[in-house]
Structures are given as structure tokens and as C-alpha cells.
């Protein structure tokens, strides 16, 4: 049990990026789920919480269901990959990975002192953009964070999110994407 009182948005961004990794036993276990469910409880998303219905001890089958859903949603699938988690797929001139908008995203990173850890990585992946937001929040660059969210992240994420909400077979991915939506929305 923790005694945390205030929640850091930077950590939430990182947590959400983490939640979108390929599900494996090494991290997708009791501790992670406990935290994830606590988020849902605190958000008051009872229906999403109930839909998860994970047993106390996750079986290989439980993990495999998530892996299959992750693969079909985000990697490769028959009939086809449904929601590649990369910005340029959804933006103008899109339908492609590492399109022109991805280059702009990388330029944005660089203009603010960041870059990809690996040259072969794709700048506008969902996890990279969430991690970047976490860094901005840690640095107190809230205006830059807002600009990035408005101009780079939300324009594609909303399209992505709609597809995942419609196509995911597992409640987990619907809930994660809903959570990302919630935490990347501008405060009123």
C-alpha cells in the first residue's frame, strides 16, 4: 500500500506509455493491474473497471488474449492491422509510417532539447509522444506541452482512439485509450 497523495501528471504520462507496451508477464502482473484498476476506481469508470474482469492470478491464456488483441490492433493482422499507433498514419498525406508529419514531430522534440534514443525508432509513436509529454511536464514546460498536445498529439490520437474503442476485443485497450484521452485533454 502506498501513501501517495498528489499525483504527478508526468508520471501518469509515463504510466500510460508503459501501459501501451506489448503485454508480457514481465510487467503485466498483479502490481500493474492493481495500479491500473485504482486509476479506474479513482476516475469513477466503474463500467470499464467491471469489464476488465481479470482474475487475481493471471493465466497464460489471459496474457495471450491481450497479446493477440495488441497484435491485431497495432502490429499485423488478418483481415488487416487496425490501428497502427503512429501519428502520420492518420494525418494528411498519411496511410504511411514515418510520414512527413513524423519528421515535424521529431523536429519539435529537437527544438526542445530531446531526440529519439534510437535512430531507427519512429518519432510519432504513441509511446514516444507520451514520454515526451512526461518530460515537458517534469520541466514545467506547460505551454510547450499544450502546444505539442494541440498540434501534434491530439489531431491523430482522436482518430486512433475512435478505432481502438470500436475494434478492441479486450476491455483493457479500450480503457487504456480512454485514459490517455482523458489525461491528454486540455483542462478547462
Amino acid at each position, binding site marked *: 500500500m502506498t501513501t501517495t497523495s498528489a499525483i504527478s501528471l508526468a508520471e501518469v504520462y509515463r504510466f500510460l506509455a508503459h501501459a501501451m507496451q506489448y503485454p508480457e508477464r514481465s510487467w503485466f502482473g498483479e502490481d500493474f493491474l492493481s495500479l491500473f484498476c485504482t486509476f479506474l476506481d479513482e476516475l469513477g469508470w466503474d463500467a470499464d473497471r467491471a469489464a476488465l474482469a481479470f482474475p487475481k492470478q493471471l493465466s497464460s491464456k489471459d496474457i495471450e488474449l491481450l497479446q493477440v488483441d495488441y497484435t491485431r490492433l497495432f502490429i499485423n493482422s488478418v483481415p488487416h492491422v487496425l490501428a497502427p499507433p503512429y501519428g502520420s498514419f492518420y494525418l494528411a498525406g498519411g496511410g504511411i509510417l514515418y510520414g512527413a508529419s513524423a519528421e515535424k514531430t521529431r523536429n519539435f522534440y529537437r527544438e526542445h532539447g530531446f531526440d529519439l*534514443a534510437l535512430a531507427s*525508432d519512429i518519432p510519432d509513436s504513441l509511446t514516444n509522444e507520451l514520454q515526451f509529454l512526461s518530460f515537458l511536464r517534469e520541466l514545467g514546460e506547460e505551454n510547450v506541452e499544450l502546444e505539442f498536445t494541440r498540434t501534434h498529439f491530439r489531431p491523430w490520437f482522436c482518430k486512433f482512439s475512435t478505432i481502438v474503442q470500436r475494434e478492441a476485443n479486450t476491455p483493457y485497450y479500450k480503457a487504456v485509450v480512454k485514459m490517455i484521452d482523458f*489525461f491528454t485533454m486540455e483542462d478547462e
Partner: protein
Amino acid sequence: MALTLTRRKFLQTASLAAASIPLSKVTAGAQPGVVKKSYPAPGSFTGTESKPSVCEMCFWRCQIVGKVRDGRLVKLEGNPKSVDNGKSICARGNAGVQLLYDPDRLKYPLKNIGERGKPVWKRISWEEALDECATRLKAAQKNHGPHSLAIFPHGASAKYPMQFFEMTGTENVSEASFFQCRGIRDMGYVSTFGFAPGENVDMAHAKAMLLIGTHIGENIHVSHVKSYLKGLANGAKLIVVDPRFSAAASKADIWVKIKPGTDTAFMMAIMNYLVVNNKYDKAFVEGSCEGFDAFREGIAHATLEWAAKICDLAVAQIKEVAELLAANAPNVSIHPGRHVSWHGNDFQRMRAHACLTAILGAYAVPGGLIKPSSGIKLGKVGWPKGEHDEEFSLTGSHKFKPPGMPTENIKKAMLEGKPYPIKACVCWGQNPIQTIPGQQATIQALKKMDFVMVVDVMPTDITMYADILLPEGSYLERYDYIKNGLAGWQPGSDTAVGYIAPRMPVVEPMFERRDQVWITNQLAIRMGYGDKIPVQSLPEMMDQMLAPAGLSIAKMQAMGGIHTQPAKAPYAPAGIKEHAFKTDSGKIELYSEVLSDAGFPAVPTFLPVEEVPEGFARLVYGRSPVHTFNRSQNNRWLHHEIPENPLWINEECGKKMGLKTGDRVHCENQDGIRSRTDTVVMLTPGIRRDTVYMAHGYGTMNTAMTVAKDQGVDDTSLISKVVVDPETGAHGMRNNFVRLIKNGKTLNIPS
């Protein structure tokens, strides 16, 4: 929490105390994809590079440069240093950018937890994927013998794994490039000239060119097209033999609208005419050929009238062709063709190509058949040779087969277990669903396997049948092929330019794509062959291959990707008519005792093909200028240009059937097999009444190819009648016939 909860409110008021672990701890070990880095000055062009490489959108291997900005490939161009294709690349070459970043590409190792044909994919680690592949391939070999593996490779990256599997004890390798494409050509020329001809005819300096079924212009290989166009610009006469008014036919001086399947008779009549009328190159035949008398006797029946009747041509036109060739000999290009697996009588046709070249003396002269060599020696790196028991050879009666084993024999062993069972299958860069005729039998054979492993770049149709599917880096993300060629020769000069250009990565591979050396070595270790690994990495292999030329990857990078050096022109000294060849006799074998001893015709012989049944037309197929078979079908730019394959139908026939250009039809073949999809009709006077035509490679069935799926008609699906060339065991694929279905109504094709 209230329903009107905002982010801010949540962060201020929520508590995660109920969780079993603090938020910070969950993400503590995660490696971020974005990190702090120094800020590069804007406008400095930091990271903008020109990366030299070699294209593989088709297999001509043009030299290219990739313009890479900040790690992202933004454009592909011809390498300005190239002495081969120069600055030019074709539409496909340009469109490589789209292949690289295609969202449908394979990204991680996948395991099929569904069934073959209806896969349910699960991403797995390389460790798990390789362990499973090795375990199951070894199990097949242990239970059924080392020969129980069938290998279907294709492309430059498949050579290293193919050699590995051969080393483990299986000869059951079927390369589409040999058994469904050019193998018959190579073996026909090897049996005549002692070497495989490639497409090495000196069209740029020809006085006349003969293309038999070759449709240059639709089949785009940049330096080849340039050579052809240069020849035409220099005034070369062009003869095109084709049942269809192809792009090449549109430029021809003589278009020979031949009946499909009769080309050998056509060439035999020309050769007989040249011989009878003393219009052949006597000095060359005496100096360089063997068996002329028996050859002359063997084709003596092939009169112009005989051929005209068989080929459905006018006597005068065949004579006109013969006279034109004789008048321009020896400077004539008798094009050997490329895809020649047509009718199951193709070895004899290729022998006719070669013999016609020989009696015209069209060898090692301007315009003729040549053997260009850069003179640059490269090292060889590969697996040790395997031991193969003759008892398990599937050669059968096909004594003149190209390298590998006849596909149909492999398929029979997969399907029926005869003469022994083949129980596991590896497809590496080949899509047997669209390369091998008899598609339903191929699918049944795949379903009978204990294990199917597929390595590919795209989710082509074959990937639907994989148990384990491994993602390979594309040609833009890896090393491999070293182009070694000759350019820049001119008649009257002894000199030329030799060049080599290695394929080098333009960008690093994304996701978990791996190269063929890494994948194969990892498999080898797990299968117990770790001690035989010839090279640890692709860069190491490249350096070993380049070393004999005094070169290395680093040197090639420094010199812009292409090394050139002076070389010899591919011509014999003027007037030389006596040449030595690597055949049994040391001469060009117009009459082949080797063939005779094996029970095959010793001189080019016409073997009739099945006639077109009433109500049907013969289905012939060819290349689209913007596609390379099925490989490029999912490319958005290329798909935009030619999204489907129109069905060419003779205009008069079409009108009688009530069709007009733009109508949509399905095809139904002689066995009642209907195309899954439809395509658009193109009525044209430019095709024979007994023939219909479409471009090959369309009609992808795998829905994971989101651009290509169901676009146009898959011609291979309609090739259910399987014919095999007796000498080589390669397929003939133009002995199938179709009629049409429009709005559910069957339309017979008028005879």
C-alpha cells in the same frame, strides 16, 4: 469521483493509495524512446545524407541513392555515379519509399495461434520464434529424414538461408526464378552455348532485333530499356512476335501476330529457310558449331508453309522475317527472353533461340549475344556443401533441370508423400500462392505440412499459411547483393567500364526486422550447425566478398557506392568466327548428343500444345510496367498508377459477346475455377481472337495487404491445369483457357 471530473481535479484529489505499488515504481525500469539530446542548429542540414545502394523493387538491381533527412528516407534517385542505369530509375524504384514505410509491413516475429489460411497472429520474441522454428524443423528431419524439408526461396536475401538448408541435407529447393520463370532459358542455352545468356544481347548496337514474347516497355529494366531504345534510335529494325500488340509491338517494323505455343515452329522454319537458301553464317557455323548436318536434316521438314499453317501466319511474313534477319546478320539481337515458362514445350523453344543466334553468327559481335564481364573478381562466402543421397533426388526424368528440384515433384511429395514425405516447408521471400500453378493444390500441400515457416517483408498471400512468420529487413535496410557488371562499350573499341555496386542500408531497420544472415545463423545454432557458420554478420560477409577486389564496405561508402575500372569490351576481334564453348563438344551444339542420349530431341523440335476449347480463349499474362509481380502490389504510389489488371479481349469477339471496354467481368477456366475477384474489360484489335491477356500479380487474397487485396484478378488462380516441361521440369503456365462471367451470366468467347 464526480462525473464531471477533470484532469486537474483528478491530479489534485485522487489517491492511488489503494494500489499495491507506487506509480513511480511501475515505470521505473522502462527505457524511454525519447531522450534529452543537444539541440542542433536549425538550417545546418544536420543529418541530411545521400546513401548509395542497389534497388530491389525488381531484380535488375539499378544503382540508387537514398536521400535521408534526420533518419527518414525522403526520396530515391538513380546514383549519378552509375554507368549502368545512370540517374534514371523506374516508377517502382522511386516508390521504394512507400515500401519502407508501409504500415502493413511485417514488424515483429508472429506466431499463428489460429489455423493455416485463417491465421490469428500473436507477437512473440525472436528467441521464442527461433526456438520453435529450429525445434520443429529438426523434428521433421529427425522423423522423416533431412530431405523432408521443402524450401521456396526468392530474391537476394534468400541465397544464404537456401545454402544453409541445402547443407542440412535437403535438395528440395524450388526457386520461382528458375522453375516458373527463366530456368528453361538458362538450360536451353547451357545445352547449346554452354552458358546461361541472361538478357545479354547487345541491342544498343544491333541492326535488327527479334523479340519473341518479350515485351520490353511493359517489362521495365532500366539499362535494358535504354539499350533497346538506343538500338531503335540508331535505326535497328524491330521484329516482335506476340499474339498481342504489346508496347514493343507498337514500335515494331514487323509485328508477327503468332498463335500462342507455336514459336518453335516459327523459328525452325526461319532456320530451315536460312539454311536451304545459304543465308546462314557458314564461317561461324564451321568455326564454332557442332552437328550442323544433323541439325539441317532435323529441321528440313520445317518449311515456311508448314510453319505458316501451325503458327496461323502468312508464308510471306515468315519469309520477310527470315530475310530481314539474314540481311542484318551477324548484328542481330535474338532476345533470349526472361519469363519463358509458357507451354511445357519451352526448352525446345529456347534451343531454337540459341540455334538461330548461332547460325546467324550473332555471337560476340555488335548487336549479338554477348558475355559481358567486368573482370572484377569477388570473394565467395557460403555454407559448406551438403551431402545428398541420390536415392532421394526428385529430379525424375528432368535431366536438364535448373538448380534446385522441379516444383511439381516437390509438391507431389508434400501432397501425397511420394516418393517420400516432405513434412516441413520454409518460404523465404517467395509467395508460392502466386508463383506456382495449381493454386488449390499448393494450398492443400501447405496444409499438410507439420510446420511452415515464412520469412518476408510484406504479408503476402503465403504468409497466411505460416505457423511462424518472421519479419525481414527490406532492401533499403540491409546489405546483401553486389551488382557486378559491364557498361560503356562501343563497336570498334576494345574497352569498356567494369563496375561493382553493393547493396548497403539506406536506413536502419525499424521494429524487430532482422537480416538473413542473423536469422539463418540463429537457426543454425539452434539446429546444431553452429560450428559451420561461415560468417557472423552481413557486413562481415560483404567485406569478405569485396576483399579480393581490394575493396571494403568502408571504401565503397567513401566512393559513393560504385567502383569502376577499365575492362574489355564483350566483342571478339573483328573477323574471328572460331570460338570455344563450355559444352561437351567445345562448340555450340546445334545437334546435341547429350540430349539425344537422354531421350530428348537433339535438334530444336516443335511439340504441339493443346488447342483452345470451344467457347474459351487462351489465358496469357505478362508484366505491368509499374509492378514486379505481386511484390509491389501494396505500394500506394504504384497502385495509384495501375490499380488493377485489365483483361485484353479481341474487339470483334468482345462486341459479339455484348461487352464494351470498362465492363467488369470474372473469369472462369476450363476446370470451372472462377476468379475470386473481377476486373475491367479492355476491348482491342491488338490481340488474337483466341487469346486473352492480363498482367500477372494482381488479385491478392490476403486482406492484410490493405491496398492490394482483391484488386484485379489473380491469373495464377486460373492456372489449374499444370504442364511440365519434359527436359527441365519447369512449369508451363499458358495452357489454361478462360471464358467470362458478367453479372452472373457465363459468356462464351466466339471462336
